[in-house]
Structures are given as C-alpha cells and as structure tokens.
C-alpha cells in the first residue's frame, strides 16, 4: 500500500473536501483550501519520498516507478500553486466543490502517470478531463461555458478516436496492456494499421498536450477558465500528458513513419502557436498559444524515441510546469490587482515600478519559456533538442530553435510592458502576501538553479527512464 501512498492521500483529500462541500460560505471554503494545499503538499512529498522503487500493481496495469513518481511530484507541486492561486481568483469560482474538482483532476493525472493498461489510462484521463472541464466552466459566465463546452466536445471526440485506436491496438496485440503492446510491437513496426492505430491513440494525448490538430480548445479554454484552473491546465495537465506519452511510446516504440507523422504535427504546432501568439493581447490567450508551441517542442523530444528523449521530456515537463507557474503567478497577481480575470498586456504596464520582484519573476519565467540561458527553460530545450538531433531530426530542431526566436517577440513584448511602459496614473504599489512572495522566490530560485546546475534532475530523469526502458 505504501506504493500507492500518493493516490491514497488524494483520495483522503477528496473525501474530506466532499464532506466540507456540504457546508456553504467562506469558512468551509477556507478549510477546503487548507485541506487541498495540505493534500497537494503531502502528495508531493509522498511521491518524492517513494521515488526509488519499482512496483507493478493490478496485474501489470499500474506501475509505481521513479518516472511516475517524479511526474506525480511535479503534478502535486503544480496543484499546490494552483490551489493557492484560487485564493485571489474571482469569487464565483471559489466554491467548495471547486476544490474537489482540483483534487480529482490531480488524482486523475496522477493515475495517468502510472497507468500501464489502457483501461486505467482511459479512466484516469477522463477523470482528470471531466474535472478540468468543470473547472473551466466554473466561472459561470457565457464565455466560460463556451470555452468549457469546446474543451469538452474536443476532448470527447479525441477520446472517441483514442478508443478506436486502442481497440485496434487490442486487436493487433491481443491484449489491453502496455506489456502486450511492447511484446507485439517489434513485429508490427512496418504495419500501416499499427501506425494508424498509434496515430488514432495519440489523438487523446495530443489533445491533453494541446498539440495540433486538437489544440483549438486551448486558447478558448485558457482564456475563459478561471486563472487557477488555467494554471492547472497549463502545468499539471501538461506534465501528465508528457508522462503518458512517454510511457506509451516506451511501450510501443517509435516506428519511423510514426516519428515522421509526429514530427509534422510538432512542426505545425510550433509554427502555429508561436505565430498566432504574436497577435494576442489577452495574456492568458497568449500563454495558451505559447503552450501550443511548447507542445511542439516537447513532441520533438519525444519522437526521438530514445531514453534521452524521454528523460529530457521529463526534465522539460518539470521545468515547463515551473516556468508556467511563475508566469501565471504573476498574471494572477496582476489580475487580482486589476479586478479582471483576463488581464491584457496593458495591465502589466509599470509592473517593474509597482512590484519589482514580481516583474523579475515574470521576466525570468518568460525568458525561460523562450529558452534563454542561464534559465531552466534553456537547459530543458537543450536536452530536448539534443535528443531529437541524435535521431537525425535536424530540421525539426532547427525549426524549433527558430521558433523560439519568434516566441521571444511576444514574451519580450510583455517584458517591455512591465519594464518600459509607465504605470497608469494613480496606481498603487502591488502588494504581495508573504506566501505569494515565498512561492515567487521558490520559482525564481528553481528557474535559476535548474538552469545553472541541472545535473541532479537530469541524472534523476535518466535513471528513472532507464529503470523503465531497461
């Protein structure tokens, strides 16, 4: 049971929140928040502490191993940040039930990272997805409903296609577990149906990762969801997706044709996300497009299909969560100050004067997203692209780097607003609560540390991947 500690902690948290949901008003909400934070932190610690062992459970449909534990820790940490962000979000999205969705979603993602059978994978994915759909809708205005519906319907189609793919895989391999897939895959690498099945299956993953061609929901959902939920979608959900893809690809291998297909999608994702982001004024929407582009980068690393690729994907997912947390932390502070859950770039005017530290964190997060050294995002991109280059995907790598240059344009635009433009007349200094300050400091330190000395995390990722892939 100790190996399922993380999941059990979530479960406990969910039950607790369920009880609290009976109550109404501010006090139970605070309790729920506290309980949620406690759960998240405990889950993070639990997964970090049990990251040494490898256990197979439930007849090989679920694994607890260093890689999944790593992803779980990332998801839990991101969850903690998101929960904290709800504190300053719009009031209608701060009902007690909402915390239940957060925890369920995180639990779903956690289960995703460990699933090695298609049934558990499917259920875990849907658990996280439905919670996220509901979170996206929790602002309860027209736009939120619209965004959530688009999110949901795209997700439903993606699951449908995924199910089809899985069914074909079952037919081809004779089993519904990754183990069966691994066993049968070598004989199937040149079978077009197998490739097709992989492609169909990956639709759900691409949807989670918000990669082309099922990325369309992302800008709308990011924009319309409450900030904290957006953050969860942008961080934990991505990490879960990367975990699942890694596992799936480790099991199936990456046939050349499939790598080519994924490369094409990565190519389009990057280009589309980055260029579209150039025209955004709403910061959340901008970050959504940025995440589409980032999905392209991550795919580039993953399609290498090597241990390097998977470990660098883990590293990048961690870093990605970190830097997006940083960015959204600042965005939420600005949003709370502006009493507008959808801040535009204009709201960032004069941030450096109003709150220099926050501006610095924003700067570092954005530069890290753009892959500028000596920040974590740079190292992440380096290892990611290095893995892709090893497999000869030089064009994709080159394209990816060129794309990050383009991305720098819109990141810098935001930086420019915070550093160069004058704050509107009469604006006050932006106050930070100690916890927020601490969080920001931690993110700051993490970005710099992982940029300058990424060794421990990279080595961890490598050993974790080699523990699975052998």
């Amino acid at each position, binding site marked *: 049971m100790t190996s399922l500690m993380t999941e059990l902690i979530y479960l406990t948290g969910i039950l607790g929140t369920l009880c609290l949901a009976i109550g109404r008003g501010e006090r139970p909400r605070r309790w729920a928040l506290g309980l949620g934070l406690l759960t998240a932190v405990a889950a993070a610690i639990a997964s970090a502490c049990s990251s040494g062992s490898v256990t197979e459970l439930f007849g090989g449909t679920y694994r607890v191993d260093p890689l999944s534990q790593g992803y779980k820790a990332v998801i839990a940490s991101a969850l903690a940040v998101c929960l904290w962000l709800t504190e300053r979000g719009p009031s209608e999205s701060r009902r007690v039930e909402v915390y239940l969705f957060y925890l369920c979603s995180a639990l779903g993602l956690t289960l995703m990272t460990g699933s090695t059978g298609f049934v558990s994978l499917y259920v875990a994915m849907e658990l996280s997805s439905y919670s996220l759909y509901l979170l996206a809708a929790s602002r309860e205005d027209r736009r939120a409903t*619209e965004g959530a519906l688009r999110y949901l*319907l795209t997700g439903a*189609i993606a699951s449908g296609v995924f199910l089809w793919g899985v069914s074909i895989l079952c037919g081809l391999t004779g089993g519904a577990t990754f183990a069966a897939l691994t066993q049968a895959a070598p004989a199937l690498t040149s079978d077009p149906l197998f490739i097709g099945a992989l492609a169909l299956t990956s639709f759900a993953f691409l949807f989670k990762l918000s990669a082309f061609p099922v990325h369309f929901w992302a800008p709308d959902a990011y924009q319309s969801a409450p900030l904290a939920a957006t953050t969860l979608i942008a961080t934990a959900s991505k990490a879960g997706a990367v975990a699942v893809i890694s596992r799936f690809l480790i099991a199936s291998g990456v046939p050349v044709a499939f790598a080519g297909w994924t490369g094409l999608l990565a190519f389009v994702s990057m280009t589309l996300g980055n260029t579209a982001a150039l025209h955004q004024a709403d910061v959340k929407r901008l970050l959504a497009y940025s995440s589409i582009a980032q999905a392209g980068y991550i795919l580039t690393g993953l399609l290498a299909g090597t241990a390097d690729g998977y470990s660098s994907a883990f590293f990048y997912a961690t870093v990605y969560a970190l830097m997006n947390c940083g960015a959204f932390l600042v965005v939420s502070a600005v949003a709370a100050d502006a009493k507008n859950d959808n801040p535009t770039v204009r709201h960032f005017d004069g941030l450096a004067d109003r709150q220099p530290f926050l501006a610095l964190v924003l700067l570092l997060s954005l530069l890290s997203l753009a892959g500028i050294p000596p920040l974590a995002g740079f190292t992440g991109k380096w290892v990611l692209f290095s893995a892709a280059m090893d497999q000869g995907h030089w064009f994709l790598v080159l394209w990816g780097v060129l794309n990050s240059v383009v991305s720098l344009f819109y990141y810098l635009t935001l930086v420019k607003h915070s550093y160069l433009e004058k704050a509107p007349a009469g604006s006050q200094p932006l106050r930070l609560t100690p916890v927020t300050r601490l969080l920001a400091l931690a993110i700051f330190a993490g970005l710099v540390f992982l940029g300058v000395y990424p060794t421990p995390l990279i080595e961890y990722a490598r050993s974790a991947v080699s523990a699975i892939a052998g």
Partner: protein
Amino acid sequence: MSATLQPYLLISTLLLCLGLYGVLTRRNLIAVLISLELILNSASLNFVAFGRFHMADPSAGQVFAIFIIALAAAEVCVALSLILLLFRQRRSVDPASMDQLKG
C-alpha cells in the same frame, strides 16, 4: 457470418463515420452529443468484437466496453448540464452561437 470479425468492423466503422458526420454538421449541441454517443458505441462494439475474436483474455474487451458505457454516462451528464447552462445563458444550443471566443 456473425462468427467473423469483418461485419462488426464494417458496422462500427459506419457508426463512427456517421457519428463524425453528425458531430461536424449538426447545428444543435444535443444532436452533436447524440452523434458522440454513436462514436462511443462504435468503439465499444469494436472492443467487444476484438475481445471475442482476437484477444488473449476473452473478457478484456467487454470490460473495456463496460467502462466506456460508464464514462459515457458521466460524459453525457457533464455535457448536458453544460449545454443546458449555455441554453440558459444564451437561449440557444446552436454551436454557431458560441462565438465569444476566437482569434
């Protein structure tokens, strides 16, 4: 005839494509949802068929189908409440009426 896979696959493929067609063309979100159900059904038909003919564990396909049915219920539940919410907000369930978010 019923003892081979091919007819089932043909039926499920047809269901899938009809469902896709419906999803893409209907101007009513509930109709879209109905089409989605077709897709899910085609998938579960697939699973059961593969489970019957080609899988090592004969129950695996059915188990999968059970989960699909259960999750379809959840999906419909969430989707319908969202659609009704949209209807309350906008007096319309036409997907084209969702036009607030773009660009």
